[in-house]
Every structure is written in structure tokens, then in C-alpha cells.
């Protein structure tokens, strides 16, 4: 018999519906990944036991692990579906939506909380305007090499899903946002908002919620040094808190 691949997919018709599992069996092809498999299911949405079903709903866009859309739990691990090669996965391959974000449908979840967090910490460089004001500040290559990896965060939210502290009771902002604070606080012009960013990370849900489980750095598909960012920013917050005592 020709080689096949078996998927177990957790499906949920809408945010209030009860989740159900469906199994699909696909012909194996060289180089297939989880997204190409979901595309194959859409072409012929019939379950393993011959029941007519529907195409799976999931988020995706670039399919080369740079847009951050297709994050899901694959065999229990938070990761990007496009770069999850079937040949490297244990079967049956279990696909589930992220557990800590509201399910929209099937594997698609609402991750807008991260974008709200980025607003809260003012994750931008406050330029005066877009008219011609000459070149930007000079930057040593060493600093660029430190900042560039931080700037490759794709907002996939894998670090938040994997973090034991990221839940409703703590309201923790999560590693991605903290790492962006580090990035913008390092920038010559971005520094102008440094204390505002640090204040946004104080108190409930702030940086002190981190329990140093280090899951974030382990799941990050872009190998961003998240734990280093957290300890760096924790130090900045501490200094800011001390400074606040004397200046307020």
C-alpha cells in the first residue's frame, strides 16, 4: 500500500461550539508540510472513515516562517505550521489551536492581545515626522548585530502560548513584548520613551510575573534571545523603580 500520513485535527465551528476531533489520511508526498497537508484536505475534505467534512480553517500567509500567521499546537508543541515538515513529525500528527487565546474557528485563534501590548509599551521610534531630516543616528555594527535579531520577532505568540505564567490570572504581557521594549530602549531615538515603556512593565501583568521557566526561548521559531531580553529589561525596570523613589 502507498505510504500515507495521518492527521488528528481538533475542530471547533465557532468560539462557543464544543471542540471535536477529526482524522484525515493523506497520500504521502516528498517535502510535504502541515500547511500543504491542510491544502490537500481542502481539495478533498473527507475524513479517514469516509465522512464528508469541510476544509480546515487556519491562519496562514507567507508560508516561509516570516509573517507569523500559522502558529498552532503541532503534536502538543507551539510552532509554525509552514515549517513543520511532515517527515520530521511523529504520526498521527495532532493539530490543535493555541490553548491560551480565544478560538475563532478550528485552528485559527485571536492573537490581537500582542498588538495591544505593543501599543501599551509604545513599541516605536518617536520620529519628528516623515519629511526629509537627514540621515539617522550612526550605529556601531556591534549594536546593529544585537538589535537585528530582536527585530526579527514575527509576533507568532509561540512564546506566550508556551509560558506557564501567561494566563488570565497573571495577565502577564509575555516575552515578545518585553523583548521589543529592549529593542526600542536600545535605539538612540527610541530611548526617549524608555521610562514610559518601563513603567508600562511595572505592576500586575508586568515583567515581575516572569517565572524564568525558559519555555519561551525554547519554542521561539526565530531563536530570539528572549530570556536575555527579559533579564536585561528586568534590570532596567529595577533601576527605574529606584529612580522613581527619588524623583517622585
Amino acid at each position, binding site marked *: 500500500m502507498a505510504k500515507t500520513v495521518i492527521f488528528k485535527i481538533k475542530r471547533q465551528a*465557532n468560539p462557543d461550539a464544543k471542540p471535536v476531533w477529526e482524522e484525515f489520511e493523506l497520500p504521502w508526498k516528498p517535502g510535504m508540510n502541515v500547511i500543504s497537508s491542510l491544502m490537500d484536505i481542502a481539495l478533498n475534505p473527507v475524513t479517514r472513515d469516509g465522512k464528508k467534512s469541510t476544509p480546515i480553517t487556519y491562519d496562514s500567509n507567507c508560508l516561509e516562517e516570516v509573517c507569523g500567521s500559522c502558529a498552532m499546537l503541532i503534536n502538543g508543541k507551539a510552532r509554525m505550521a509552514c515549517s513543520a515538515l511532515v517527515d520530521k513529525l511523529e504520526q498521527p500528527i495532532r493539530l490543535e489551536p493555541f490553548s491560551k487565546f480565544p478560538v475563532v474557528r478550528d485552528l485559527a485563534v485571536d492573537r490581537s492581545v500582542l498588538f495591544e501590548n505593543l501599543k501599551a509599551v509604545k513599541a516605536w521610534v518617536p520620529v519628528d515626522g516623515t519629511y526629509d531630516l537627514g540621515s*539617522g543616528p550612526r550605529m*556601531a555594527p556591534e549594536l546593529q548585530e544585537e538589535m537585528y535579531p530582536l527585530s526579527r520577532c514575527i509576533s507568532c505568540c509561540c512564546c506566550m502560548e508556551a509560558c506557564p505564567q501567561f494566563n488570565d490570572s497573571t495577565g502577564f504581557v509575555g516575552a515578545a513584548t518585553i523583548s521589543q521594549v529592549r529593542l526600542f530602549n536600545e535605539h538612540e531615538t527610541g530611548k526617549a520613551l524608555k521610562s514610559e515603556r518601563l513603567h508600562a512593565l511595572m505592576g500586575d501583568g508586568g515583567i515581575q510575573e516572569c517565572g524564568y521557566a525558559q519555555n519561551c526561548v525554547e519554542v521561539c521559531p526565530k531563536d530570539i534571545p528572549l530570556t536575555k531580553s527579559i533579564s536585561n529589561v528586568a534590570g532596567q525596570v529595577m533601576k527605574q523603580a529606584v529612580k522613581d523613589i527619588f524623583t517622585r
Partner: protein
Amino acid sequence: MAANPKIIVVGGGLAGLSATIKIAEMSAHVDLFSIVPVKRSHSVCAQGGINAAKNLKGEGDTTWKHFDDTIYGGDFLANQSPVKDMCDQAPGIIDLLDRMGVPFNRTPEGILDFRRFGGTLYNRTAFAGATTGQQLLYALDEQVRRFESDKKVTKYEGWEFLSAVIDSKKICRGICAIDLRTMEVRTFPADAVIMATGGIGAIFGKSTNSVVCTGSSQSALYQQGAYYANGEMIQVHPTSIPGEDKLRLMSESARGEGGRVWVPRTPGDKREARSIPESERYYFLEEWYPKYGNLVPRDVATRAIHKIVHEEHLGIDGQAMVYLDLTHIDRETLNRKLEGILEIYEKFVGDDPRDVPMKIFPGMHYTMGGLWVDFNQQTNITGLFACGECDYTIHGANRLGANSLMSCIFGGFRAGPNAVQYARSSSAADGNGSFDAERKRQEDLNQRLISSDGTENPFQIWRELGEVMSKNVTVVRYNKSLKETDAKLVELLERYQKVNLSDKSKWANTSFVFTRQLFNMLQLARVITQGAAMRDESRGSHYKPDFPERDDQNWMKTTKAYFAPDADEPRFDFEPIDISLIPPRPRRYDVAK
């Protein structure tokens, strides 16, 4: 009229965000629509860099040379004035991006580093590793988030554009869009609308484009009366990695940093690449194009690979693939300048390109054609503007690498202020009749689709569309197969009427939305195919072996397609080109131009 007008921007890639920032800065309000959260737009995929003649390498580069390279690279099809404007503004745009915090690579002195790209002899490309598009998009995304916090921008992420609302005077008054979760159809009024909806890769099935790049919006507007220009000009990138779900781009920067393209000289050579001695390797680009070598423009490199594979039968293992080799470059340099793309190859193919030559093949990448706009970025529908990949300006018959990021930002920076200026002087809408009518038209279309109970699977139709377009309307084009392609498209449109959705639910129904896009893809595919059939010459990316020369006498003109509703198919007008600045001359890359 409106002192603080409201402008709708559709699309949140580089072009849309650039327009948004300019508009917000002018104290007008922006409603920003995007299928995906704007930070996930296709601009993130751009890898190699962004062109500007900053001349920071002491080479004597000038904006005029950038202009000349772009016009020459585009084989004299682009109107010249807008291209000159872009090249003149490019250095200032780089400065701005630098100020916004884009982590561009630096020289030891701490200034911007530049590398060489295809179709030029100058180091003119600024870059942030090999993820430049991602870094630029993020910088603009951050600035837009800042305006959003100040309530100057309202984002509608997870909404898809369906059509423009056009009143009885043929003026665009807003848009009709669908909420991709609730499937609610709504109209949104605006004083002007800017389209920045990017590429059309999905029409070719597999391409280097993202999933959202279907060209559906452009096609919808074409069917509403907008001109679509130079649709036949499709860029096939010489170096992509074939995949089951898409073709992943392997940036031109790999060659910019010294990567070499070769095949074994002996057909069917089974030896492992690294064990093949230098003398038995055929560096065909370097031999055929001694002056530009591996950095010939994309159309030239793609045709060369096509020839090696299909005429000389020298593809690796007899397959349609050639080597792109970086193994002679030291690892440290590769990691510093190209890590992003090396990681893609490693993750998706499983080999380390620092150790083994990459196997690559041409893949559909970009549309030079797009919505027709005037020099103010306005379409032929008053109040409707377009910028970025979805407009047709700048790149002519072939785009040079690293010019797209610049053209997106330049286009947005021009469309935004022009839309505001237009809105401030335009007349008020006459009642809201056209809004209700447009919403009803779209709801009817939705109802018909959801209740259709034929036998056709939309994903199957899409697969066949992609196959026929990739086979007949990419690198090499023959009139006979173009005619067959159009007949196939007509067949697919007929089958579309018998489509059956397995999912008829009214919540986050992605296959429903896709099927709506599919109709628009099929309509636009006919524009591309018929445009290609008509143009009996070879120019830039458009190559017909039966008409191998450029024919300035008859074809130095812009193709303008418009939809004939009665016939349900495209009609064509042609428009002369602005060649006021650089007289056309033959284009060749074996010698310095």
C-alpha cells in the same frame, strides 16, 4: 470640501502603510483595511534590500544612474517621469527608514552598508540581513500603531475588500467589504480610496507570493471599470525553491554577495555537487554575460536557466533545477549578511547552504502590470488611487531587484498626499443610494455562491488555473498556447458557475472567501493571457520565440485592458509611453551599457 477628510486605504503592506502615515501626518483620518493583521502582510517576504543611489561606497553612483538602470532594466516600457521621481526621492526615503529604526547593516564606521543587486554595476542596495522587507514593514507598522494610539488611524484587520462604491457620476465614494469572521457585508464611505493590495501570485497557483496575493481586489475594480495596465508583464524570479505549497524565494542578494549559478557540464552527471571539479562546472551566466555575470536582471537569468534546462538538457539530475552556490564564501560573512534566507533553505529543504550548493529553479514572483494610474497615482475612476505592486508604474517590462520596496514606499508617499488633496477639493456625494445598491449586489453574489449546489470543487479549479498559467504564460510564450490558455480560462469560468462549497457555514468560512477570490482570479487571468497574446514582440519578461526582438515601432506602448460587461471579457486600448528623458536603446547585458 472636507477640511479633515477621511481616506480609506486598502492593504497594509509597505505601500498601504506609507500612504497611511502620510495621510495621518496631514491630519486626515485613515480607515485601514487588511485581510491579515498588517504586520503579517506580504511585504515581510522581501529579502535582499532596497535601492537608493546614496553613493556611500565612492563609486560615483547617482540618482540618474539609478533611473537609467531602472528604465533600461524595464526594457523601455515604463513611463519615465515617475521613475525619475522615485530615484530622486529614494535616498531621502532611506534616511527616513533609518531614522525610524530599521536595523540596516552597518559599515565599521557605523553608516549604512550597501550591496550590489541585479541589473546594475553599483552597490546601491541597503539591507537588513536578508529580511529587509520584514524590517521595513515593521518600522512602518510601528509608526502606524503610534497613529492608531492617537486615534488618527482606525484599523479594520480581518476585513476583505469586495468592491468600490461608485456613484452615478463615476466617482468613488467608498468601499464594500466583508468581515472575515462574521461574514457581514458592509459599506464604508470615504472622501477618497487608495488601493495597496499587492501582487497576484495565486493566479499562477504556486508562486513566491503569500496566500493573500490573489489580485482579487484589482480584478474586482477592473470589472467595475478600472483600467488594468501591462497585465502581461509577469516576473519569474530565477532562484526559488520548489515546494508542495509554494515556491520559496531565494533572494538575489545571494548572488549580490557572490553566489554563483552553475550546472555540471556533462548532462546527467550523478556526482555530488561538491565533488565536481571547477573545470567541469558550467557557470553559464558568467560565460554568457561577462560584464554582469550572475547579476544580470531577473528576466535574463530566468531565460538562461530555462535554456540550460529545456534546450541544453543540463538540469541537475535531468530535472528542472540548477545550482546556486555560496559554499566558497566564509560562514561568518554568510551569517551576517544572508542568515534569513539560509535559514529558509535549511528549514524547508533540510540542507545547509553554507556546506552544499542550493538547488533552485525559476518561480513566478511579481507583476509589473497592475491598475492603471496617472502620474498622481489616481486610477481612471475619480477618487480611487492605487500604489505599490498593485499599480503598473515604475518597473516597465521587468523589475530590477530591490526596486520593489522603494516603489511601494514611494507610491504610498505619493498616493497618500494626493488623495488628501483631492478629497479636500472634491464635491460631496449625492445621497447614499449607491452604497445600498453595492451592498445588495455583493450580498446577492454571496447568497448565490453559498446556495450553489453544483459538482465543482473550487480548489480543483484553482489548481488547474495555476497549472495552465504557469505552463503557458510565464517564461516562454507562444500565441498558440496563449489561445489555448484563454479557452481553458473560459472553460474554468463556466465550471465556476457549477461550484459547490462543502462548507456553507456563515462564520469564518475561509473556503467561501477563497471561492469569491477565485472568480476574480479567473477574470484577471484572461487580461494577462490576452495581453500576452496581443503583444507580438519580446520585451523584458515578455518573451515570444516567434517574435524574438523588441519592436519599438509597434509595441512601445502601455497595454490598457478594460472590462466589457456585455461580452464578459477584456477589451484593450494602447497608450504611448513617456520617453521624454532617456531615448530608447537596445538592451544587452554582456557588455557595460
